[in-house]
């Protein structure tokens, strides 16, 4: 759970640098519909998280990611593989 919070905070921090306030972001937020991210924003977010957590997320695995929660789950999974 702690790790889940950590990942969520990292996502919030990344988005806040792009003008999306942390209080607008929850696990339920849809990346496109609620936060207005386009495909380029999503790639950029992925790169930021890869760098932050020392993981690599293949583009194919991003396809199922719709919400912030989906992204958190995916990153958590990658991190546990690494540890």
């Amino acid at each position, binding site marked *: 759970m702690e790790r889940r919070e950590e990942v969520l905070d990292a996502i919030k921090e990344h988005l806040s640098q792009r003008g999306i306030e942390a209080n607008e972001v929850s696990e339920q937020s849809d990346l496109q519909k609620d936060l207005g991210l386009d495909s380029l924003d999503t790639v950029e977010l992925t790169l930021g998280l*890869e760098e932050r957590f020392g993981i690599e997320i293949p583009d194919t695995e991003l396809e199922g990611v719709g919400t912030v929660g989906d992204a958190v789950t995916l990153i958590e999974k990658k991190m546990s593989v690494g540890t």
Partner: protein
Amino acid sequence: MNEVVITGLGLVTPIGTGRAGFWEALLAGRSGAAEIQGFDPSALSVRIACEIPDFDPSTYMSPREAGRMDRFTQLAVAAADLAWAEAECSNLPAPEATGVVIGSGIGGLSTIEREHDVFRDSGPRRVSPFMVPKLMPNAAAGAVAMKFGLHGPNFAVASACATGAHAVGEAYRCIKHGLADVMLAGGSEAAITPLAVSAFARMGALSRRNDEPELASRPFDAGRDGFVCAEGAGVLVLESREHAERRDAPVIARVAGYGASADAHHVTQPDPAGHGATLAMRAALADAGATPDMVDYINAHGTSTPFNDRVETIAIKEALGVEAKRVPVSSNKSQLGHLLGAAGAVEAAVTALAIRDGVLPSTINLTDPDPDCDLDYVPEGPRETRVSFALSNSFGFGGQNACLAIAAA
């Protein structure tokens, strides 16, 4: 054929942002040159430039928009925003008939440098997905259209240091020939980077007067030793006279003609006889239906390089004949440095203001005239005089020349 008038000016420059502040600083003789602040220049042979240290993109756009733009696009959007407000454009009737021509000499060089470092240090996966849309020189024209919802003709021109003038000229033609009612036109540049300054310095194009930055840009002076790199943007709102009158817009001046030519001589050096530059001035006069005796002022390209200022003087004499000795000529680059792709647009704006207010900006730092530069360069300070018709010269690397004729409204 439509008459084309100027109804708004947006200026983001090293000596001031916004028309009023900029014009006041220009007429006060202020120089924008200083030691480079944007990066540590200590390893470089040239350590001076004209920067805009206090530019804050958040005044003009959201942080999210700013993050998707290179600095040159941010500066262009800011200039367009200022021009748009001045022209009172908020209720334009036809977005389909409103277009944008904004060019850049270089484009998003700082983005290229940054992402190249990422590529080298962290590998291809880490390269930003925004690299291409940030670096492309047409990004500024696209961003301005998106900001205001404009669906008319939209493109960038690229002719190095003549870009801004070509952009204004091409936009003028769009309106003249009925392709658009309103055009935002200009240029933008933000290329004060370690790589660009090193490269221009290696060409021998830049002044090395590092200890006296404010004296470094000295067009037509015997002691000139190159230009000073500058960053900034200029955007003009051009409009058919009919459209401007219908909506009761404030008219500053009129674009009366445009001439373009090529030296076809050398990639960086001007044709020593000034043939290409002469052709551009003659073409602008012909397009305006004007003759040399009508010219009240020339806003020079005047870069402060030994070559340009000598050849431009020759070309002015060729184009204007016996009238050349009578016509005052001044170079804003003495104060602004060389805005590269933005220079022609900012200088067209200055020319329009000179006409509207009846005052010529000075060529500062001209204390020891080069014997080969023997025209009236307005060295003593701003000069009050009636200006009904003026030319604004811009010449680019590549041998590409543009001349705009601007007249009283």
